[in-house]
């Protein structure tokens, strides 16, 4: 099987050595996420957003007034592409290889992220399901709250190494562990 050589993850070199059991605070790097960029034509933002929020198996992430990311960890890229290309007045492009998806969770997650992000992530302000693009460890990252103490971070592939190292550094005092997840 040569598939592992073809799909070598960018953070493979950063996550080396033996794998430990995950601590309560854990950063998991999703091995093969499906990430699509969706842009709406001017004047059609509301209908594209509605279609995107109603789409199955896809989690929408807000980037800007005309722009979203569609993330899926369950279905393949072809399925997502077929589904998204049916949305009228939207342009869709596969970004799966250009972005890295990480999930950080645990009781200390907000303290860890406070060292990385200059945006208020209090659950009353940044509630569950909310997402936004913001500066995270000097890189423009899309951060979404997927649970009470769970956040998903999407960063450009070329910056993933430095963001990952910075996140691990911020998590050291909270015993943050890391590992790949499918």
């Amino acid at each position, binding site marked *: 099987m040569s598939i592992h050589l073809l799909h070598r993850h960018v953070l493979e070199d950063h996550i080396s050595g033996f794998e430990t059991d995950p601590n309560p605070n854990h950063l998991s790097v999703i091995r093969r996420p499906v990430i699509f960029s969706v842009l709406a034509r001017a004047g059609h933002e509301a209908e594209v957003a509605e279609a995107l929020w109603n789409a199955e198996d896809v989690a929408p992430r807000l*980037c*800007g*007034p005309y*722009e979203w990311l569609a993330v899926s960890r369950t279905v393949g890229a072809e399925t997502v592409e077929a589904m998204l290309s049916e949305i009228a007045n939207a342009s869709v492009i596969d970004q799966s290889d250009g972005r890295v998806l990480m999930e950080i969770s645990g009781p200390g997650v907000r303290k860890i992220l406070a060292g990385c992000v*200059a*945006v*208020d992530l209090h659950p009353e302000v940044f509630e569950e399901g909310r997402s*936004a*693009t*913001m*500066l995270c460890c000097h*890189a*423009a990252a899309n951060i979404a709250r997927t649970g009470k103490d769970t956040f998903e971070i999407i960063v450009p592939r070329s910056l993933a190494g430095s963001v990952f190292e910075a996140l691990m550094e911020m998590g050291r005092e909270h015993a943050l562990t890391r590992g790949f997840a499918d």
Partner: protein
Amino acid sequence: MASLITCPHCGTRPKEEFSIRGAAAPKRPSPTAKDEAWHRYVYVRDNPKGRYEEYWHHEAGCRRFLVVERDNLTHEVFGVTDAAEFKRGGAAE
């Protein structure tokens, strides 16, 4: 320097997320305008003290161009609008 900018799309964000792209008040001359007009537009700029309209690009957020009206003396921010709306408002005048 105004350190917190309330982006109309993203909410209150630190200034590190933006890059400043110059004054918003000068009107861009037409492509066929004389060289003098273009020279004035590109190189001869006022450096006012006080209230000031400026293009800010929200690079690390929504990636929209915004027009920030601020006081460059007191660091007070009076208003932030999307540059597209600013242009539309200007055209209506």
